[in-house]
């Protein structure tokens, strides 16, 4: 149960209560602003290597290479925006026929890196006036193998990091205090590299594409340490974001990475089969995940056909996307809107694998006739806070977040309302569908890590403060078939461990229920009880047999068997290979079945902090209950400020 202030706790227990329900909408998903890119420029420049950066004055500096003449072009737009001229380019000499470019900036300094016609020499040109003029070229490095992709960034301590691909190897050289250090090579081995990007955020955070030594095409992240997540000068392991099997004709290339509110990533997915395509995909890290966590929302297609992808730039107010023939921008801040004053009715339902919200807003003056383009639009995040007017003023406790699934305008018979239908994190998870086969081998990832991966694909974070041993250590072979939803995958994972899941805000929390859990709240004594219904019955089974690979264990509910004969349920899981594992599963599933033996519901004045899986004590002398312990298995809250005012909770109950 969420912790409530003493004043809110006192208010919700009073015989006379004045409800306060707060509703806000945000143009974000799970705490991350949604970027809505608007195209500002469409030109005819050919697709080839390119780069972009935004110095401290807000100008946009771009460079590109012509694929026929290999002429290097530069462009600086002093005030980028609608109506600006993005078509004027200045020749800056001739470059390598097959090598990328890199641009980076900080304050007034802009650095351009390119490769000479010999394909081995890396040159640098520097500007100290926001890219208005550049120095003559300086040769930095002569690489052993031809240089293909490059990326550069500047740290807050003004160290310039240049990363470049030479052969199938990544090299790094740092400029500290104006002096370039000797190039260093990474420790990894790949067949090929086809994209490289870097952003600085405590370390040098890289996104790269290529082919591993097994033939898989992949997109990875990797960290070159600067004392953040990795020690200075060390390389992390490669962490996979996307993969394609050898022979599938799918490959990845042209990565671009920026660190803004979260990490934003673009890369090109290229398919060489029938109906071939080369399409940028974009993704972002989760709201509070670190780069090291490598938790990314499912990459989705961007409406562009480009072999060399886009260059992503995080400006002060806008995120910018550039390719030679295009410029886009999107506001970085997420719009928000307070809806509280217009709220007429709200109904929220929360269950163990689903949650829905329906709200009705007044629209008698047509104030919501134009919705759908700002903070309130399809997919927007809704924050519902349940509360009361207390001695300290209006107070709320915020529950799970919801995301808008549909907007419905009602009119007629004196009614004009906007009805919003939304779902909680389970809805986001249900909308995510596996677009290819996902597979983890035995021992590769724990159930917790698998849950985190699946939820991340829907943009959701999983918090496990005290996970069960099974959740944290059991690492089964697991697959998600193409077309299956995240809900199906999550359900399969959650039955493997005793932990239960509930949402608080946009995060999924896991906890292990135990019959010795202390009671979170008391009804029927200090908190009024309006109505109750209590059922004693039997769960789906009172005898459970779990069969693994050559091992079997049973769980019995003897009292129930004594009364009802045995009701058998069998579980088969070939991932269970030891007696301890089948016993653990039998205990988990048997206890879960036993919890379903008790049922019922109570109706109470809204408890602002009540959550799923809380343990409550119910005292209802009329039904013969005195401090009876039950677990909350569902919540239904209804608020209505029209007609007969309503503000109550209906709590579905199960065994502890």
């Amino acid at each position, binding site marked *: 149960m969420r912790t409530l202030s003493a004043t809110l706790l006192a208010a919700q227990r009073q015989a006379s209560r004045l409800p306060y329900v707060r509703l806000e909408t945000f143009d974000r998903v799970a705490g991350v602003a949604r970027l809505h890119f608007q195209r500002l420029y469409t030109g005819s420049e050919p697709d080839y290597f390119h780069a972009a950066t935004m110095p401290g004055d807000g100008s946009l500096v771009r460079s590109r290479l012509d694929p026929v003449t290999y002429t290097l072009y530069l462009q600086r737009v002093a005030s980028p925006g609608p109506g600006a001229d993005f078509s004027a380019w200045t020749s800056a000499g001739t470059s390598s026929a097959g090598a990328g470019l890199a641009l980076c900036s900080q304050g007034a300094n802009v650095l351009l890196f390119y490769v000479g016609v010999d394909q081995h020499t890396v040159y640098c040109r520097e500007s100290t006036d926001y890219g208005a003029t550049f120095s003559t070229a300086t040769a930095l490095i002569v690489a052993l193998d031809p240089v293909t992709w490059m990326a550069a960034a500047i740290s807050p301590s003004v160290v310039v990091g240049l990363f470049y691909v030479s052969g199938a190897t990544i090299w790094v050289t740092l400029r500290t205090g104006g002096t370039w250090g000797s190039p260093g090579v990474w420790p990894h081995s790949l067949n090929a590299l086809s994209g490289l990007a870097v952003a600085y955020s405590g370390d040098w955070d890289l996104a790269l594409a290529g082919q591993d030594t097994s033939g898989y095409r992949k997109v990875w992240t990797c960290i070159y340490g600067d004392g953040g997540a990795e020690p200075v000068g060390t390389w992390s392991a490669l962490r996979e974001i996307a993969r394609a099997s050898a022979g599938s004709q*799918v490959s990845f290339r042209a990565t671009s990475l920026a660190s803004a509110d979260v990490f934003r990533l673009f890369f090109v997915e290229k398919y060489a089969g029938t109906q071939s395509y080369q399409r940028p995909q974009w993704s972002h890290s989760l709201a509070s995940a670190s780069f090291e966590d490598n938790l990314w929302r499912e990459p989705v297609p961007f409406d562009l056909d480009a072999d060399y992808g886009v260059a992503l730039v995080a400006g002060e107010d806008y995120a910018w996307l550039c390719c030679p023939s295009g410029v886009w921008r999107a506001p970085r801040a997420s719009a928000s809107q307070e809806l509280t004053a217009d709220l007429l009715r709200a109904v929220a339902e929360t269950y163990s694998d689903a949650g829905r919200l329906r709200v009705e807003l007044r629209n008698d003056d047509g104030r919501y006739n134009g919705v759908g383009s700002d903070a309130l639009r399809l997919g927007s995040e809704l924050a519902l806070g349940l509360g009361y007017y207390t001695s300290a003023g209006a107070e709320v406790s915020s529950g799970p977040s919801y995301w808008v699934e549909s907007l419905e305008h009602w009119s007629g018979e004196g009614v004009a309302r906007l009805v919003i239908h939304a779902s909680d994190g389970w809805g986001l998870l249900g909308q995510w569908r596996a677009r*290819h086969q996902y597979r983890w081998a035995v021992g590769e990832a724990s159930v917790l890590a698998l849950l985190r991966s699946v939820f991340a694909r829907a943009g959701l974070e999983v918090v496990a403060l005290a996970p069960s041993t099974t959740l944290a250590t059991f690492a089964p072979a697991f*697959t*998600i078939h*193409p077309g299956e939803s995240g809900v199906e995958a999550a359900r399969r*994972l959650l039955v493997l461990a005793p932990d239960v899941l509930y949402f608080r805000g946009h995060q999924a929390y896991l906890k292990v229920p135990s019959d010795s859990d202390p009671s979170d709240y008391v009804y029927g004594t200090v908190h009024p009880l309006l109505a109750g219904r209590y059922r004693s019955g039997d769960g789906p089974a009172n005898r459970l047999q779990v069969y693994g690979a050559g091992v079997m264990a049973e769980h019995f509910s003897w009292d129930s068997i004594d009364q009802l004969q045995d009701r058998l349920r069998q579980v088969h899981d070939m991932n269970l290979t030891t007696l301890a594992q089948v016993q653990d599963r039998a205990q988990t599933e048997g206890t879960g079945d036993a919890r379903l033996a008790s049922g019922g519901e109570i109706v109470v004045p809204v408890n602002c902090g009540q959550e799923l899986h809380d343990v409550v004590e119910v005292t209802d002398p009329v039904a013969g209950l005195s401090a009876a312990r039950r677990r909350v298995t569902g919540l239904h809250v209804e608020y209505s400020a029209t007609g007969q005012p309503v503000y109550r909770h209906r709590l579905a109950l199960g065994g502890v």
Partner: protein
Amino acid sequence: MELKRGILKSFDAGTYKATIQVAGSLSVWLEGVAVARNIPAGEMVPERACALVFFDPGNPQDGVVIAVYT
């Protein structure tokens, strides 16, 4: 139990296991799927369609190729 359609991509007659492109998965194939021993190795020709049974839909090791056709 779940029945899936797939395309055979490769077959190892030694382990009697196959790599299968499960329908709907353009880019990633499922490797190491057991093949029914009653299917002759000579019939395991790449690009043939196949049928897979997953006794446990979440466990890729608990499945078997039960038919190849075309």
